[in-house]
Each structure stands twice: as structure tokens, then as C-alpha cells.
């Protein structure tokens, strides 16, 4: 590196004769800056990409939410007038139609997410526990279970849309024609049943992921625990309750959070199933925001709703992480 003619001191530092520190100082400092700076320099491209791909659009979206961005201004949206908080005021004024519709959509989404995540987790966990013991054909079954997760969303959901058709759909054919469970064929893609249709597709699509993660988590539970438990006379149910579920807690914490975020934000499923105008019973928030911006060409209100959604998800995620980590700390202390 830097070569110097000055003799080195015992501690490895160069010792100057006449200029203590004057000539060496800056050189050493640049060396240190270089050493410290290099990692940051190497991180720079990733940082810029992150800015470009995530943060800049987010900031632009937030800026847009304070503008009156209708069709008259989209060509050059810097000219759109500032509206201060008008878009937000309109979105959360629950006595007016726009706010009322948003609130309705929000509640539908909450109910949908709660049910979907719960069912996905439950089915996934049950399936993973059942598949824990080796038996013939286990590998095949595991692969089959993962198929819904591996299919492209569009192809899978459009198939469901065909199956849910009123006249020629498979679902009505089985429920009505063959089993005779309903008096007349039901509508699944319009009206109130659309909520059930959406939930079915969402759970069908989501549970294999829960299955996959829980299955991975189960591999880490030592066999000895089960052996010890069965020696102590614990039945299968007790083993699941006292060993399996507590051991899965860290996995479940992440799994439920991820499932929650995915389900709450899901756009593809309702869009492919119902098209641009989802039935009221299945009006998920993502599709509602899409309609509030793209279809009515009011991107300002759409952005304001998106920002509100972002804030809500941030709060939920924050509270969730806070609670679960506190619990983990407490259980670690015990």
C-alpha cells in the first residue's frame, strides 16, 4: 500500500521526525475512509435500485394522494392542483358514498382475510402433521398438495371462474344436478355467494404455502421429544398440543404475518374471478382502489386510499411484531 521511508515504531505506526502527524494524518485518514467507504460504495448500486424500484414510486404515490389527479391532468400531472387533505377527507368520510363504500370494502377484506388466513393455516398444519410419518406414496401426495401453489395464478383462477359458472359450471353440476343440495343452480360469480367463491379460491391457492412452511418447521423438532413424551404416556393429541404447536411457534409467527399481508393485498384472484366491477359482497380493498383510480380516472383518490391501506398494514404489522417478539422474550426468560 502506501510506502514510507520513515522508520516504524514498536506499535507498528510510522514515526516521523520533524512533523508529528502533519504529513501522515490525511493519508491515513483517506486510507480509513477508503476502508470504511468501500462497503458502502459496493452497496450503492443495490441502494439505488432499491430507491428506484421501491421508494421512488412509493413517494410519488404519496405525493399523488395530495393532488387532484383526474383525466384533465394525467398528461402532465405536475400541473394537477394541490388539494391538501381533500382526497383523504373524502376517503374517510364514512357518511358519504365514497367513504362508505371504502369502509364496506375494508370490512369485507378484513372478514375475508381472517377466514382465509385461518383456514389456510389450519388446513396446511393439519396436512403437514398428517404427512409427518413416513408411508407409501407420501412424496407423491406432498407433490400433489403443492400443485395449487405452483400453478400460475391467472390460469388457476380462470379455471375456477369457469367452474363457478351458473349454467355450465362444474360446481353447480355437482352441488345441484348430482347431489341435489340446492333447489336451483346458484350464482357464484355475482351476488352474495361471490364471497364464498372468492374464499374457496383463496384458500385453495394459499394453504399449500402454509403446508410447505409448517412441513419445513416440523423437520426441526427433535424426535427425542416425542419419544420422551410417549414414554411419559402422552397421547397423540397431547403430543401435538404440548410439543408440536409450541415448537412451531416461531415458524407460525412469520407464516401468519406473510399470509395476512398477501391475502389482504390480493388483487389477482378477485380481478380474474370477477373482472373490473367486483360484486359488493366480494369487493376486496385492492380491487376497490383499482376501481377508484383506474376505472373512474381519479388517481388522487386512489392514491390516498392506497396510502391509508399502507398505513393500516404498517400499524398491524408493527403491533403484531411487537406483541410476538415480547412474547418470545418472555418465554425465553421463563
Amino acid at each position: 500500500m502506501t510506502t514510507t521511508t520513515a522508520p516504524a515504531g514498536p506499535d507498528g505506526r510510522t514515526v516521523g521526525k520533524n512533523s508529528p502527524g502533519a504529513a501522515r494524518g490525511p493519508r491515513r485518514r483517506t486510507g480509513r475512509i477508503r476502508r470504511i467507504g468501500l462497503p458502502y460504495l459496493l452497496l450503492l448500486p443495490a441502494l439505488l435500485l432499491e430507491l428506484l424500484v421501491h421508494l421512488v414510486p412509493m413517494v410519488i404515490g404519496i405525493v399523488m394522494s395530495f393532488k387532484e389527479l383526474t383525466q384533465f391532468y394525467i398528461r402532465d400531472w405536475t400541473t394537477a392542483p394541490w388539494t391538501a387533505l381533500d382526497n383523504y377527507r373524502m376517503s374517510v368520510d364514512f357518511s358519504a358514498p365514497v367513504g362508505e363504500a371504502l369502509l364496506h370494502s375494508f370490512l369485507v377484506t378484513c372478514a375475508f382475510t381472517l377466514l382465509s388466513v385461518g383456514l389456510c393455516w389450519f388446513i396446511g398444519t393439519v396436512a403437514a402433521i398428517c404427512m409427518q410419518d413416513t408411508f407409501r406414496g407420501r412424496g407423491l401426495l406432498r407433490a400433489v398438495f403443492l400443485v395449487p401453489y405452483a400453478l400460475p395464478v391467472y390460469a388457476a383462477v380462470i379455471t375456477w371462474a369457469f367452474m363457478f359458472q351458473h349454467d355450465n359450471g362444474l360446481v353447480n353440476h355437482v352441488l345441484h344436478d348430482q347431489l341435489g343440495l340446492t333447489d336451483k343452480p346458484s350464482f357464484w360469480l355475482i351476488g352474495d355467494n361471490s364471497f364464498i367463491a372468492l374464499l374457496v379460491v383463496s384458500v385453495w391457492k394459499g394453504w399449500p404455502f402454509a403446508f410447505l412452511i409448517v412441513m419445513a418447521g416440523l423437520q426441526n423438532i427433535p424426535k427425542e421429544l416425542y419419544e420422551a413424551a410417549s414414554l411419559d404416556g402422552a397421547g397423540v393429541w397431547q403430543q401435538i398440543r404440548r410439543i408440536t404447536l409450541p415448537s412451531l411457534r416461531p415458524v407460525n409467527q412469520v407464516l401468519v404475518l406473510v399470509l395476512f399481508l398477501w391475502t389482504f393485498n390480493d388483487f389477482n384472484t378477485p380481478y380474474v374471478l370477477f373482472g373490473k366491477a367486483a360484486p359488493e359482497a366480494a369487493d376486496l380493498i385492492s380491487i376497490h382502489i383499482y376501481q377508484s383510480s383506474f376505472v373512474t380516472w381519479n388517481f388522487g383518490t386512489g392514491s390516498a386510499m392506497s396510502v391509508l391501506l399502507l398505513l393500516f398494514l404498517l400499524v398491524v404489522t408493527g403491533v403484531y411484531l411487537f406483541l410476538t417478539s415480547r412474547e418470545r422474550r418472555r418465554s425465553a426468560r421463563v
Partner: protein
Amino acid sequence: MRSIRAAAIGAVTMSLALAASACGGGSSTGGGSNDSPKELTYWASNQGASVEIDKKVLQPELDKFEKETGIKVKLEVVPWSDLLNRILTATTSGQGPDVLNIGNTWSASLQATGALLPWDAKNFDKIGGKDRFVDSALGSTGVEGQDPAAVPLYSMAYALYYNKQMFADAGVTKPPATWDELVETGKKISKDGKWGLGAEGSNLSNNIHQIFVLGKQHGADFFTADGKPDFTSDGAVAAVKQYVDLMAKDKVIAPGNAEYAQNQSLSDFAKGKTAMVLWQTASATFKTMGMKDDQWGVAPAPVASGTPGTGESTNSMVAGINMAVFKNTDNVDGATKFVKFMTSDAEQKILNKAYGSIPPVKAAQSDAAFNTQATGVLRETLATSAAALPQVPDESQFETAVGTAVKELFADAAAGREVTTESVKAKLAKAQQQMPAK
């Protein structure tokens, strides 16, 4: 040491490149230029039975244009489900095609964005003048009193298509001319799994087209003279109720049609499940669905009473496609030339024949092809009894809001719930509240 320096240089270079590409998005406020005179990009709407068929129809014509002018046209046929979104995105980013097709009902909405080249007298002169075009088609090119945002390309109108065999089987000798006759005919046919009329209950645009015409017949417009939404007038409510009642009360539309949005009503018609559809230029589609030309007949769409005409005897919207030039084009002269080519008498005949539509160019209409069984009725309707949808900037929002209301009413009717004047009015009131407040 050297490798670290190389990595550092690499990192800096990449960062600079990223920064540069992030800034170089292109300006969105240009006013059109002639920077690239040898090339054009053209977004065509999907007029034939499929995107592939359209490419086959259009490509030979584009080759002809290239031979004449030396300008190469890059064609993209955009499906209807994407077209408006694509145009909006292009408008926002300034990165779009040079020439594009738009649904003529969007003219005023897109005109308001300022993304399309206005067709003033000077521009019209370049393509042979405004008076080459039929008046009804020009009536759907933008807000009245402003320079049109687009030029008519294909014209279409609604007509009543019926299955001759099914009519004969039910003892119906002539197609219904009024709504009462249509309901009566429909009731005769609607039994044993067969139905009188088809509908696309979940297709928002189609719902709008139907109730707009019925609105006219009830003396209602969905906008006031100064462009404010007026969805809850007695006439508008009666129009929507009359349309939904075809399923709810008269039971001549199969309940399953409430969820149709992808032209399933046409395939039901081609399969002989329904006897009638109200549609625009359906002949080419029937052919691709395997129906022979002599199996179906076509008659003017019904009116309340008497014969079709203007005002309350309107029996169709002015349907059609307009051609527009994107204001940001880098080949404005070439784009105008291309519009001139596509609206020339010869091309108008070729293209409208291929799509079963009517040329909006007067001189091209005289061709015998536009006076056949299928096209004669459409031409007559356009000339005498078709009205343009409201030319207001909020037209697109109107289609979504009211189209959704009708979709929900159809869902109610399909589920066996009662559709009353009150429930119709409530849905329309809700739709009106969703319109932009100005």
C-alpha cells in the same frame, strides 16, 4: 488491490448508469414532431373475432401503405379489456403509439386529457375535409363545439338478430318491431330450456348501450345539457327497469345471462339456445361461431311504438371506432398520412367489408357490400335513428358507475329478488354519487 479498485469503479459506473436511466424517462409534454419520419406505431382495436384475424386483415393494408409512402407501420392489436388502460398509461407516461383506435364513446373523455391531436380544419384538410364523413359519426368524436379528438373509422349500430328456425318453430312470422312485441315473442319461445332474448348482464359497456337507447325512448338523457350527471330522472329509472325487467318480470332472458360478460350470449344464440340478441355488427362473429348467413335474420332494434326515427324513436347508439393521433408522436406528418390512407374510399370499403361494419365515409357507403341483409339495416339505422352517447368528459365514469348498477340489478333479478322502481332508483342514486363532484 486492483480487483477492489475495479469493483469500486464498477459500482460507481453502475450507479451512474442507474441514475441516468432513472432520469431519462422522456418528456411527457412534447407537442409532436417529425423526428422519425419513416416509422409509425399503430394500436388497433380488436374488431374481428380474434386478435389474430385482425392482424391478417390489417397487415396487407399496412404493407400497401408502406409501398406508397415508405413509412413502416408497426401494428399491435390491443384487446378491448386492455385498450383504455393502455391509452391511459400512455397518456400518463407520454410513451405511446403514434396512431391509435379508440372506442368512439371515449372521445370526449380522452379529449379532456389533451393526449390526442385535435382535428382542426387544417388537419381535416390534410385528409380530404370534414364533409367526407357522415354527420352521425362525426357526432361521436368529442365535445360539441371543440375540435374533434379523433376521426371516424368504422361505424356500427345495434340491430335485432334473430334465429329464423326458432321463430318458425314458435309460429312467429315477423320479427318484433316494438318492445311489447318483443316480450310477446320472447314469451312464446322461452320454454324447455330455450329463451327469447340474450343479454350480457356483467358487461358494463353493453349495459350502457342498451339503457342509453331505452333512456332516449323514455325521453331521458343521463346528463343535463351542461354536462352534469342526471341518472335518477323518471325516464332514466324507467329505462333501466324496463331493461332489467326483461329478465326479472317478463322472464324472456335466462337468469344465467346476468353473469355473462364475454359474449356468451352470442354463442348461446349460435347454438340455438336463445332466439334473439340485440347486438352491433354481429354477422362476422356468427360466421366464426359456425352459423350460416341464412340461419339468422336481422331487423331494426325495437322501439316503444311506431317506427324508428329520431328522439323518442331512437333505436340504437352510434357505435363505432375512431382513429386518433397521439399528440406526442414523433412523426406527425406520417401519422396524418396514415389516417388519410385508412379513411380513403378504397381502404374504407376493404376494411369495413372485412369487419361487417359500415363506412363513416359517405363515398364508400355506396358500395353494394353495405346494402346486404346484414349491413342494410345497420346503415339505415345509422342514417335515421341512431343517437350518439353523451359527449361529456365524464362519459367513461358514467359507463362504469351506471354499468355496474345495471349489473347489480341483473344479479338481483337472477337471484329471484324483486326489482322495483325504488330499488332501481336507489342503485342509480348510488352510481350518481360516485361521479366526480365538480
